[in-house]
């Protein structure tokens, strides 16, 4: 066992978890699974949750403070960050479009989805998180009474509580409608310590971290040095913690999957139903990623660099794309990406050596797209309708959190937990999509790498330093 690489072990844990779920649901051991195995899955999620906030906080501060070169390079720096931001937003937009049109979560059995929804409402109640996002309460709707389990029956709200929730909903709606800019207002924390002590205020934490990081760059170096050293140290500690937790991940993943599935399904057919939905999810995600690589990037390039032919672009970039696919790490691919961009594309070294390393940490088009698709898929699976505003929060959190999380191993998993929390969905749901995360991760990296290369080409062109294609 010792020699096996960690992701293989996690895979084994995954498979065992699913197998266990089948066995326990067919033998009626779900009660045992929920009592004695599921808690370890919960512990795993809690560990990642508590690491997430400080990790994001300190890694963003460190990351932004480390971007001090950007300010020195002035125009070029601004342009680079701007371009990265635009491509990320576009990629996420593509993801949202795909997932909302295809609706992969609805391909699952209707009955199972209603059950999912009911257990989600139970979870909300247990955590005192108020009414569900769309304001409906399936628990109290007589139309769904036939699906209720006994414990859920017991938790039905009384008339009085329902009225209370109605009133709160009204108040919340009024507040929401007061101004379309409300979500920007909500990004600014009233009290930083309050924001970091609440997992759902991640955007405020990110806002503070970026602001703090920029300020560090602006104060005198000798004053900033101890703070930077402290932030770097804390950052290293939390990355180490992720590392430690991940050592136990195979076991935890087993418990998580077994527990989550046991809670959602009582019979093997139901277990099967849950995983059936994954196929449509994977296809939607792949469709979105393919669209970005094969249509969006070439399209943008066509617009600004008309002389670059469609096929030539891919011929130039293919070595980096293949390596990205097999390593699923844009940092590991960086040297090859630079080579491709410089030798094949003809981007001068002065630009590529500046733009690409930033891109490898900041620009995560594929990852952000994946977050958007995955979260909305999971919401669909649980019959939770998210409004456009709620979807935009997801986009925002996902793209901003990627600034810091990029350097962290297993960043995808932690980011997903962050995003789910910030929109008030159950973070344990990551278990559902975890089984096929690894192959999708490989595809995401291709998009990330291609995006970096595209942006560096665009920057070179706009600086008039792309002689090969002008």
């Amino acid at each position: 066992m010792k020699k096996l690489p960690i992701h293989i072990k996690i895979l084994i844990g995954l498979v065992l978890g699913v197998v266990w779920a089948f066995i326990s649901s067919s033998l009626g051991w779900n009660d045992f699974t929920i009592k004695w195995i599921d808690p370890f899955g919960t512990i795993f999620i809690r560990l990642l949750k508590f690491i997430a906030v400080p990790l994001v906080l300190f890694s963003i501060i460190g990351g932004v403070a480390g971007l001090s070169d950007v300010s020195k390079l002035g125009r070029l720096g601004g342009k680079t960050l701007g371009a990265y931001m635009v491509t990320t937003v576009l990629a996420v937009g593509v993801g949202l479009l795909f997932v909302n049109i295809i609706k992969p979560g609805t391909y699952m059995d209707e009955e199972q989805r209603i059950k999912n929804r009911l257990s989600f409402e139970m979870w909300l109640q247990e955590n005192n998180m108020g009414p569900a996002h769309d304001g409906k309460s399936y628990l109290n709707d007589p139309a769904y009474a036939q699906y209720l389990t006994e414990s859920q029956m017991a938790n039905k709200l009384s008339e009085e509580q329902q009225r209370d929730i109605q009133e709160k909903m009204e108040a919340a709606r009024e507040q929401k409608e007061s101004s379309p800019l409300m979500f920007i207002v909500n990004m600014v924390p009233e009290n930083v310590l309050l924001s970091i002590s609440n997992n759902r205020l991640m955007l405020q934490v990110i806002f503070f971290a970026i602001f703090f990081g920029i300020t560090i760059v602006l104060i005198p170096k000798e004053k900033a040095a101890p703070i930077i050293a402290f932030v770097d140290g804390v950052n290293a500690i939390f990355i180490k913690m992720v590392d430690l937790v991940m050592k136990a991940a195979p076991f935890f993943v087993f418990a998580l999957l077994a527990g989550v599935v046991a809670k959602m399904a009582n019979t093997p057919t139901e277990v099967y139903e849950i995983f059936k939905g994954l196929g449509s999810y994977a296809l939607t995600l792949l469709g979105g990623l393919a669209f970005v690589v094969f249509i969006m990037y070439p399209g943008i390039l066509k617009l600004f660099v008309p002389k670059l032919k469609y096929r030539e672009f891919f011929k130039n970039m293919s070595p980096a794309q293949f390596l990205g696919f097999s390593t699923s790490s844009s940092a590991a691919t960086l040297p090859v990406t630079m080579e491709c961009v410089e030798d094949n594309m003809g981007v001068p070294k002065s630009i590529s050596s500046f733009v690409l390393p930033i891109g490898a940490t900041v620009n995560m088009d594929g990852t952000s797209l994946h977050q958007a698709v995955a979260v909305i898929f999971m919401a669909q699976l649980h019959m939770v309708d998210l409004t456009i505003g709620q979807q935009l929060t997801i986009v925002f959190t996902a793209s901003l959190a990627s600034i810091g999380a990029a350097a962290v191993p297993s960043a995808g998993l932690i980011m997903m937990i962050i995003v789910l929390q910030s929109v008030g969905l159950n973070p344990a749901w990551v278990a559902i999509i975890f089984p096929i995360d690894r192959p999708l991760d490989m595809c995401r990296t291709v998009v990330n790498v291609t995006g970096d290369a595209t942006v560096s080409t665009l920057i070179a062109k706009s600086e008039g330093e792309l002689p090969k294609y002008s």
Partner: protein
Amino acid sequence: MKKMALHTKILIGMTLGLIFGMIAIQFPWLGGFTLDYIKPFGTIFIRSLKMVAVPLVLASLIIGVANIGDISKLSRMGGKTLGIFIITTVISIAIGLSLVAVLKPGHKLPEETRQNLMSLYDATAESKISVAAEVKTRGPLQPLVEMVPDNVFLAATNNGRMLQIVFFALLVGVALLQIPKEKGTTVLSFFNGLNEVVIKIVQYIMLLAPYGVFALIAALIVEIAGDQPEKAWELLYALLWYTITVVLGLFIMMVAIYPILIRYFSKISYLDFFKGIRPAMLLGFSTSSSTATLPVTMDRVEKHLGVSEEVSSFVLPLGATINMNGTSLYQGVSAIFIAQALGLELSIAAQLAIVLTATLAAVGTAGVPGAGLVMLVIVLEAAGIPAAGIALIMAPERILDMVRTMVNITGDASVSVVVASTEGELDVEFAKKHVNE
């Protein structure tokens, strides 16, 4: 005043508080004055101690683990600590059970008083039972789950979540050991500085201890007496035998069990131990709060008993949440007392159930507010005794809480001394010089 030892000053404060309280209950206006203008200073004292508990545990445990420098030693220490916690808990329950079986305080309770008490404390009992019912619906592994914080900063804002802070600090310490040295130095020196600052703050607060204790005791007397002092004494008198049994049990823990533990498993003499820990015991008695006393206990154990910070920062916060010898003993006595008063005979199996559930409840209800009585309800139900019976023992609750907190603290301190001694982290020479300060 300057030359006087700390514990003497605290004792004087307590005595004066007692005298003042006795006088105050004779004059209604003075009683009101005490509650309005003296009690707040006691509360301020407790609050200021609680204020530093979380940062102290966090900082001292992080550097403690980083100084141990060896994870296998850490896990050995952890195993040892938990083992001793469980053993002392079981012993304390056993002592409680045997005492109550011999003295039979429940049979000495007149029927009339029983009815009286039951109706008087009916509502309080109800509320405790409902909390206990909530606690019981949690899964068996829930305590383990709740040891892991889901947000560190949230955990740090709640004294009840001390166990989560301990867990987090352990993890930080371990991670700190494994990252490159040059990255860790700044963080380590930051926490070192923080630790020193907090310790200094504790020492400042302790200068106020005699006054704080005076205020607490004076207010306590006035509050217990209430509007009708005679009736209050009557109530307490009716439960005199029960109170005596509990206090006797706690006394045995102090003068027999802990001395044996210290004598056979450490190199320090019990007298020195007792001298060193005195101030913390007195504070535990007058605040009846383990969390508030924790900073002082840590200070005494490290700076006066010669226990290394690595050990004390690990054992004491853990002990404050899960090792409650006094509380466990009290539960054993109370359970049987209630059974006796209600005329129930308990089988050996039921008594064993009490030992088992009381031990588990000590760990399982860590962080539940008002845990003592909630735990008792769980124990009663496990032994098949009507939980409404806790109404019988409500009257002396405040006083017994004080005594058992004192025992809880002494227990934690002696475990830390034993663990330190067996790990070679106890400086006896240092202790001899500083116990009296």
